[in-house]
């Protein structure tokens, strides 16, 4: 371990116990300060964790995340007009920049985006005129003076209240939401369209991208993810199932059907196969914090693109190239359609994304080193140190190596998050949430 100096120890500091299967975690997101971490699950619930405040006698406890608030964000619904069930599963959560003492987040399922307020209350009014302390009604005849209620301290209570519901704007399934740097608008993207919303207005949104062909039989491409530029309020990107990324400038026109930039890597004819198109579909797109780069994840790789170079990515990382020979069986069990997400660390120097068998990968962009780690209950006892894993491809398997054939494809890590400024990561492995922290020293 010590020899791999690029990778400091990753110590598991917290892990969430197994929960019923309806609670498969479907999204993980830190807020802008990293003090809070939100997860959404298949059951429509949002769980928010808060980082333990540092205390003098328990220095090492700093970094533990405890449950702060849990609420039901979405309920299952039924669309009677289309005879369609609408799942309650939370597809994405995005935090808003903090605007007052309360916290705000957007959560979305397939159809409806909701704005939630999470706030604290530590005072409660006391004293009634018509009732006594025990709540018994007083005889009105005895009321000779008026009492104004007084506020008294009480145990801290965290409440989540729905502030806005942005509904009825998406015919297809919402795959992304992204808050604009103007703090005033956000966008929601589904398979064929992207809409722009104002936070204050729920009854109308503007359609900014529409790739629906007049005849649905001519459909060749869908939108898979979309995100706003972190600083330029007019710029956003969206990725497609054809492995391309389009960058649009909202200044140019109200409808962004025509892109400003088009990022695409020419296909390598030698690698062409039946699965080429499926595995080139982009499952996630993320701007770097600096706004200079975009990262995309397809089935086998993570690519980093420079906004100024459209014809090829500047970096390509193999996530699990050993699966290339197994695409056929991955196609048969539908795993090939899994949508892996990817994240940047706070300084954009490391990227992280998930794989199978509860493995997740990190790539250091400067040293070009990479590591495979495993999120499992056995090795995540508090303060245990994560050991790098290795998958062997050839015939002879060394000790501590896992053969490709023994990988468990039902244990997949699709959703991860990286603290905005520190080396703390959150990894969702089906119904477990693991939080790992870089062990300093």
């Amino acid at each position, binding site marked *: 371990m010590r020899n791999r100096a690029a990778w400091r120890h990753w110590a598991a500091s917290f892990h969430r116990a197994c929960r019923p299967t309806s609670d498969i975690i479907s999204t993980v997101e830190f807020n802008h300060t990293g003090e809070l971490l939100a997860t959404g699950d298949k059951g429509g619930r949002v769980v928010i964790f808060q980082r333990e405040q540092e205390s003098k006698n328990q220095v090492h406890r700093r970094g533990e995340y405890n449950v702060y608030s849990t609420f039901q964000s979405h309920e299952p619904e039924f669309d009677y007009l289309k005879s369609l069930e609408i799942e309650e599963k939370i597809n994405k959560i995005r935090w808003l*920049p903090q605007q007052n003492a309360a916290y705000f987040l957007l959560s979305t399922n397939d159809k409806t985006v909701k704005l939630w307020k999470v706030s604290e209350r530590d005072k409660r009014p006391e004293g009634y005129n018509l009732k006594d302390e025990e709540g018994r009604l007083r005889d*009105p005849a005895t009321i000779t003076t008026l009492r104004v209620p007084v506020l008294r301290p009480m145990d801290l209570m965290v409440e989540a209240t729905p502030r806005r519901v942005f509904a009825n704007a998406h015919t297809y399934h919402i795959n992304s939401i992204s808050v604009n740097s103007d703090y005033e608008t956000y966008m929601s993207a589904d398979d064929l369209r992207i809409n722009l919303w104002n936070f204050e207005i729920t009854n109308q949104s503007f359609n900014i991208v529409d790739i629906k062909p007049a005849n649905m039989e001519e459909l060749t491409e869908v939108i898979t993810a979309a995100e706003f530029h972190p600083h330029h309020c007019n710029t956003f990107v969206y990725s497609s199932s054809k492995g391309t990324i389009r960058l649009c400038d909202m200044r140019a026109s109200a409808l962004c059907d025509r892109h400003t930039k088009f990022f695409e890597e020419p296909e390598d004819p030698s690698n062409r196969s039946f699965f080429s198109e499926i595995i080139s579909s982009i499952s996630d797109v993320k701007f770097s914090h600096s706004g200079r780069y975009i990262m995309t994840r397809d089935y086998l790789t993570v690519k980093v693109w420079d906004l100024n170079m459209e014809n090829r990515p500047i970096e390509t990382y193999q996530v699990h190239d050993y699966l290339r020979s197994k695409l056929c069986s991955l196609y048969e069990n539908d795993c090939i359609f899994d949508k892996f997400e990817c994240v940047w660390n706070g300084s954009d120097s490391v990227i992280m994304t998930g794989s199978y068998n509860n493995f997740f990968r990190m790539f250091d962009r400067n040293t070009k080193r990479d590591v495979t780690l495993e999120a499992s209950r056995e090795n995540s006892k508090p303060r245990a140190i994560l050991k790098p894993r290795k998958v062997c491809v050839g015939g002879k398997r060394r000790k501590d190596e896992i053969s490709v054939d023994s990988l468990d494809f039902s244990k997949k890590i699709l959703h991860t998050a990286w603290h905005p400024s520190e080396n703390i990561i959150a990894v969702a492995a089906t119904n477990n949430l693991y939080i790992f922290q870089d062990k300093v020293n």
Partner: protein
Amino acid sequence: MAGAAGPAAGSGAAGGDGDDSLYPIAVLIDELRNEDVQLRLNSIKKLSTIALALGVERTRTELLPFLTDTIYDEDEVLLALAEQLGNFTGLVGGPDFAHCLLPPLESLATVEETVVRDKAVESLRQISQEHTPVALEAHFVPLVKRLASGDWFTSRTSACGLFSVCYPRASIAVKGEIKQYFRSLCSDDTPMVRRAAASKLGEFAKVLELDSVKSEIVPLFTNLASDEQDSVRLLAVEACVSIAQLLSQEDIEALVMPTLRQAAEDKSWRVRYMVADKFSELQKAVGPKITLNDLIPAFQNLLKDCEAEVRAAAAHKVKELCENLPIEGRETIIMNQILPYIKELVSDTNQHVKSALASVIMGLATILGKENTIEHLLPLFLAQLKDECPEVRLNIISNLDCVNEVIGIRQLSQSLLPAIVELAEDAKWRVRLAIIEYMPLLAGQLGVEFFDEKLNSLCMAWLVDHVYAIREAATSNLMKLVQKFGTEWAQNTIVPKVLVMANDPNYLHRMTTLFCINALSEACGQEITTKQMLPIVLKMAGDQVANVRFNVAKSLQKIGPILDTDALQVEVKPVLQKLGQDEDMDVKYFAQEAISVLALA
């Protein structure tokens, strides 16, 4: 609000020997924390009653502290609270104590809901006027500073709206501070705050000394107008108007125009849209000379902008722009510099642009006079009347009155008719509905002859449209026509046709007859109603469809007051009595209702 539920409103009578006047107040106070939002809202709206009962002392020491911490409530309750507090000065002991109202309003000014914050700011502005100059500096200005340097952008945005009310009444030293705070908000980190500052820039400029406007506001304005966020830049356009109003022509040219020119050519369409949208205000603010030199060329560019939203906004302003030009030389400017661009827009690719233009283009007729209208505008009108988009045609038709005054409608009637007919038969019922609504207007301008000849049959056809909303609109259209053309016309042309429908095999059409009678009876008067309509209605009382029968009862109730007592007693009463015994429940109900309303029992 948390806490156990209080008693519902009005539950329990006031106690016999207790102080009667206290009980309702006690209920109101308890309901400030009721679980039912409506009851809380109700209590907040009667806050002045509570305060009056408590007296000024207890209002200050007990009620206001409680309200200061009550910021967890629903928006509508907070909104009502913010509004109430604006008028509370008298209830806390007059202007000397007005500052007691600042803490609750301060906490309301930091909530996330914009409407609540805006209302709190409005109330604060109101209360600031009630502060003495000393109290203003001792209490109000510190509050503004607190908000302006708050941690969260909600409080800083609220602060932006308060500078202009304290500046004029502050001492010189404090004035300097206020300006300093405003400056720092104009370059705040968050776009929210910069937007708030940009939108209050004009208002703040108005209360500043002219020198300060030039030396301090203008640089802020220039900065905001070149902000990296277009949502901030576009607000600077509005500030342009207010600032230009304060400056002399030379100063406008030197200090404002460079920024405005830049905004009109901004890379972001939203900023250019804003320039187009505020064009009339800008035009008035900068005066005629700059308008001719600068704004007209800018406007030409906006009219041929690459973004349809911008063209549409500019097209909307065409008439106002022309109206506001100096009368001298106006015609030439319009003919040479505006009209060529308008001609292009008539065949624009975007229907919103065309329909925006269609909604104002007729207004140019009065400005340009008869000859120009016939020669230049008429071909445009005619082209728009043939436009593929119904909205364009409708907008032209709805503004016919402007042209009528100048050239008379005859010039247009040949093209008008096919346009109307086509709209009248449009597949979209909303389009048909829209044209029906213009029928009385058209009838008035085209005259009775033309109407009878060409349009009457359309009006009748709508009566049997398959959409109820159209049949309904057609009925009220008939009434308006009768009001216009008189009863004799009604008797000769409308009534017979309506009555024939009473024998239609479709019961919906038979009901339309009844609806028409309801609408027309009043306009037609007693004689026609009694002689021509009543017999038909009475005959329909024997209809086999219950819906028709109970509508007969309803019609009788409606036309009853127009009939004389004789007809009522002899003809109406027996029929209603018979319907009152009908086997259908609804028919019975409406018959009995008619009997009691007409007092025939």
